[in-house]
Structures are given as structure tokens and as C-alpha cells.
């Protein structure tokens, strides 16, 4: 149990320092208050990921013969396989596009696919 937290507000924190010593917490007290004093929107959950559905559109026979490798950020793999069915992924909030490598028996293509409103659509003609 952190006794310091039971004493709220700046005056309480100063009193706590006086009673218990500030040790490594001297700096963090200010930061702690900073977060405590932040106006946090109602219902905000601090989620750091967002849901994504990746869909391929086109001839199903062609899609079933195409390997997709989906990467984010610095090329980190998040999915490998066909896209015959939509693929659901959870990705960091800041990711705005996917790097998708598509491979058939005879062709390979790398495309940058934007993420818009939780969806990324790859059209294969």
C-alpha cells in the first residue's frame, strides 16, 4: 500500500515528503500529479491498439493461389497465408499502412496498403 497516495494534492505530497523522505519519488511526484491532474476523457480506456480487417477482393481462385505476407512498422510480419477469408488483426494505433507482399507461382508484388477506418482492402484483378 502506498501511503503517499492516500494523501492527495500538492500539500499532501509535501507533507508526505516531510514524513517519509522523498527518495526516488521526488521527481515522480510531480509527474504523478501531472497524470492525475490530466483531464482524461470519459470512457477513454488507454487502448494502444486498434482492430483491423484485411480483405482481398477479386477472383477467389486467384486469391487461393496467392500468398500474402502482411508487415507493419519496420517490416515486422503480422500475417502469412492466403486471404481467401478476411483476416482480423490488432495493430498499434499509430500504424497507417501495411506493407503487403503478394506471391503467386509466377509473380511477386509488394504494395503499400492504407489502413482506413479499421479496414485494408487489397484488390486483385
Amino acid at each position: 500500500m502506498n501511503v503517499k497516495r492516500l494523501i492527495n494534492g500538492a500539500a499532501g505530497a509535501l507533507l508526505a515528503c516531510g514524513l517519509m523522505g522523498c527518495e526516488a519519488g521526488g521527481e515522480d511526484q510531480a509527474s504523478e500529479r501531472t497524470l492525475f491532474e490530466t483531464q482524461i476523457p470519459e470512457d477513454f480506456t488507454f487502448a494502444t491498439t486498434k482492430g483491423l480487417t484485411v480483405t482481398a477482393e477479386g477472383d477467389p481462385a486467384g486469391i487461393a493461389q496467392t500468398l500474402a505476407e502482411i508487415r507493419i512498422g519496420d517490416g515486422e510480419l503480422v500475417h502469412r497465408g492466403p486471404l481467401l477469408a478476411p483476416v482480423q488483426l490488432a495493430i498499434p494505433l499509430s500504424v497507417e499502412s501495411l506493407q503487403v507482399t503478394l506471391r503467386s507461382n509466377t509473380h511477386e508484388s509488394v504494395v503499400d496498403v492504407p489502413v482506413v477506418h479499421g479496414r485494408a482492402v487489397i484488390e486483385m484483378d
Partner: protein
Amino acid sequence: MTMKRLIQTSCIALLGLLTLPTLALAQDSDNDGIADNADTFPCDPSRASVSYFPTATGAAMLAYEDQWPGDTDLDYNDVVALVHYRLERNASGDVVMLHASFDPVALGGIYSNGLALQLPTSKVGVTARRRIAGGAWSPVAMQAADSNVVMVLSQNLRELYGDLAGKINSDPNSAIVNGSRLELEVTFATPAALASNEAPFDPFIFRTGDFSHQIHFPQYAGTQAMNGALFNSNQDASTPSRRFVHLSGTPAALNLLGGSYYPIEGVAVSALFPDITGFASSGGANNQNFYATNVVPASGHSVASKLSATVPPAMATPDTACTQATGLQTGVSNYSDVIPANGDYGIQEVRFQSATVSGNTARIHWPLVFLQNASFTGGGTPTNGHWHGLHSGCGNVNGVATCRAVCSSLDATYSAVNTNCSTNYPTVGFSNVTGRNLYMTNSGGNPSGPWNTYTPNPATGNGNNMEFCECTGTFNTGGSTGGGTTGGGTPTGPLSPGVADYGVTVAANGTHGIQEVRYQSVVQTSGQTTIYWPLVFLQNASFTGGGTPTNGHWHGLHSGCGNINGVATCTSVCTSLNMSYVAVNSNCSTNYPTTGFSNVTGRNLYMSNSSGNPSGVWNTYTPNPATGNGNNMEWCRCQ
């Protein structure tokens, strides 16, 4: 976020990627509808793709405050763990297996806490197991009170630190302790449409000894066992849409994704990650990478130094040559037979120079092991994804431990290992051994977990190699018998809706000797699977009464017009497919439809009832399931 991206069309046209001649010629070895070149698992009809959270080689840092609903010091180090998921999917995109790893980083709280995981899918047909530090797997039960998958992964996370008491890795003046990796494997007998965009799903902590005192991420409400009286008590300010939050609006759990630091004891998270305040005040619109920008390392601990393994477990290299697994049989194999193993100590498969199988004892001469997800120690840089030889130490404790690991991986128990200081491996057929010559050290009579290198090459040098390892158990002796003309053959698919006319072979788990199941047709509705006219391939089964039924054959089933024996028989079938009994036909049915009804060389059997459960012993009802009045099993329904 770039405006260019926002106004760009989300559809990317890939003209000319595919050509009709390519479509016509593509090979699909496992007949799952996905061409081999597009199939991550080209030889496995139950799998086609793999997804990861957060990435294939990365892990997300989960951080909890365990005082909730009490006050918070916002240092989020009471439980800190890295989580990594791998989801293996079938051709339809449904999940057939979830593999999860949890690497403990810190236990900075006063309390002892357990770890559990809830998945947004029904628990019907779901089984799970866990292991610690690459050791033996043990089953994980589904929580009875919940309809969804809810699993307790650890009653007390201190078990990952050798039951160490006190605060762990939170005080910068205390010694660093490296915990052990906890792995979880969840198998979905009926592939699940798991909402994987919700990963990491609902991993939550609870007070050890009090499962009702749970602490979840704010999006979740707790399981059926949750003590709802904790909400809005003390310092909690939960609402129906946001729970487990302090009066200040700060959550009791944070997903710090790729963060490399976590707060030291008593230091608020905002001192380490100053940008979190901007993230919070903007409702997540700004500073979305707060855990990686403007970090103040002096206010935190490095994550990397607290880990016993720095990369998530790798997936076993999928078979791309479609090698047919065979059974363990007496005779010379020259390493050509591949015995599937259960993954204990990372052993995925076993090969051998020769074997002698007598009753329940198998002496495996010159065994080789294929390792994945194994851990290693010492020098020699052995790696996963290779076949390795084994060192038996002239029969010393390490040799015994090594053989124990082999036996465990074959669901058997150790019996003996060679005690002579042996020669090198025979090299006839000895190809593909790209690994080292390894041994397992002994820990209290059991294998310790990580592998050690004895010599670089099992075919050269004096490796005191494993001339034989002898195990006792119930072995799959299929081989050419089980996999050939009289047996079930290689499983060709999962239970799929539609008419199969006995042309699909489904792998079973061996319950009451049922190794495989075939069927005339299958209907799936509302999570229930009705198997019409099921056949079973038996090995290691027990029989009673007349009719001389035998193992190694396909048998029909008798449902007794729905009597207690018919129920018991259907229960055995469901259990063998990792499902639960629902119902069996109650009419006195006709004979089996015979379209495609070949290779049924066995009898028409039933399982007698014992106090409401299958007795475990098969009885013959009629000699032939295709003729005579067998009151046959028209259908068996499982879920």
C-alpha cells in the same frame, strides 16, 4: 498521420499478378483449397495461414496495478509481462490453434497474483495445455462457470520465479531475477471465428487464493466469478463502458506494446513516459507511441535485462515436403521413419536407426530429435529447426534425463538408456542432421529443461552418443499397418459439413483406442456437430465378449436404439474428437450406407455403459456393420 494517406483510395489493384495458366497448374497437396505456394502449411489440411500479435518476433508489455480497487501509485509494476500470440488458421480463416507465451518481467506488488486469459469464443470443443521453461505440458481446464473460454494459466505467478517471495525486479537496488517463460497452447476442435482484432483479448490477473478479485483491462467486465461488489468501491470509478479505473480515470492495466522500459518502484508511469499525459488528455488521438517517445530511462527499468529469453518462441517449421509420419515399429528404419512427438522439451519429431517394440516397451536405437521452441544453455550455439543427435553420458544422470525427455515427448515413461560409452551414430541414411549432439541435464530426477551441446557433430568425434533409449507406454505402432492399406492412413481433414462417403479421415486422440474417425456425412449447426454413420479405426483398444474384434481395423458402431450403451458409444466418439456428447439416434436404425464403404474389415461394436460413462471396453454386436440388423449408429452428435 499523413493526409495523403487519408485521402488515398484503400484499394490497391494488382494487375497481372495472377494468370490463368498458373491457376490451372497449381498444386494443392493437402486438398484444402489453397495452392501449396500460398499455403503456410501445404501438407496440413487443417491449417493454411498464421497471424501474430503483436508481430512474429515481437511481444507486447502488459503492466498491472494490483491494488485495485484501492488507491494507485501509477507505477504499473505489480505485474509486468511480455505477451506474444500466434494464431494458426484454416483455409476459411478460422483459428485452429492459439499459441501464447508469457515472459514475466516484474512482480513488484506486495500481493501474490495469478494470471488468467479469457477469449471471445465458446469453450465448446476447446482444450488447452501449458508448460513452463520448455518443460512438460500439463492440461489447463476451462472455467466451468463461463460459457466462453476462461483459463487460469497460473494460480501464482511467483512459480515462474521459483516461488520467490517479496518484490521482484521493481526496486533498482535489488538483484535482477530472470523468470521462466510460461507457454499456453489452445486447440479448437471446431475451428473458431475468433475476433483476433481484439488481441491480446482479456489477459487478467487475480489475487492468488481469491479468483473473484480480478483485475482486467478497462474494456472487460470480469468473468462469471468476478466479485461485482468491488466495482465503485474504494477508489474505483467504473462505468458500464469502462471498468477497473481509478477515480482519476487511470486504468489498472496498461498495454505498453513495444515499450523497452517499465517504471521503477514508486515512480509514476508519467515520469518514465511523459508523453502519456498527452495521450490521455487527447483520448488517444495524440502521442500514440508514448511508450517509445521521449522516454526517461532514469525513471525505469530495462525490460530486456529481466528476461530469460529475448525472442518469442518460433513456430515449428511447417512440413513442405509432405513427409508422411509413420509409427514406431520393430525393424531398421535408417532414420527414414518420422515419429510425431508432443513438443515436450521442444521435441517435435523423432527418427531412429532401428527400434525394437515389445508390448508396451520400445527400445529406440540411435534416436534423433527435431527441435522447435526448445531452450538451450551453454556453448555450441545449437538452434531450433534442426535434427539433433543425442548424448547419453555413458548412462549418467544426464543421459537418463535426456532419454526421459525423449520418452516424455512420445507420451511414454523412461525405462533405460545405454550405459556403455558408445560410438558415433551409424551414418547409413543419416542425412539432414544439421544440428548438434545434445544432452539434457538432470534436475531432481527430471530433465532440467534447456538443452546442452556435448559435441558439435553427432556423426563425428567421440560423443558418447545415445545408442539406445528405452521407453514404456502406449505407442502408435501404425507405420505401414496403421498408415497403409488396412489402417486409417494419413488424416485428410477436419470434420467438415457435407457428404464424405467415408472419404475423409479425421485424427482422433486415442480415447478408448479410437485413432481415427470416418463418416458418411456431417452437419454442423449452432456449435453442434452431427456425425452420420461414423466409423472408428482402433489401436490399443480393449475388447470383451465374443466376435474376436481386433485392433488395426476400421469398425462400425452400434447405437442400441439410443440405449445407455449407444450413449456410451457416442460419448467415446465425441471424446476422441475432443468434444462432448450431446445425443445419439434413438431409432433402431438400418445398416450402414455402403457407398464408399470399403476397408471396413472390423466388426460392428458398441461400448458398454459404466455408471453413466463408457466402460472403456468394446463389445461386438454384429460381425458386419454393412449386413444384418446391427441397430447401427445412424448419427452421433457432439459439441
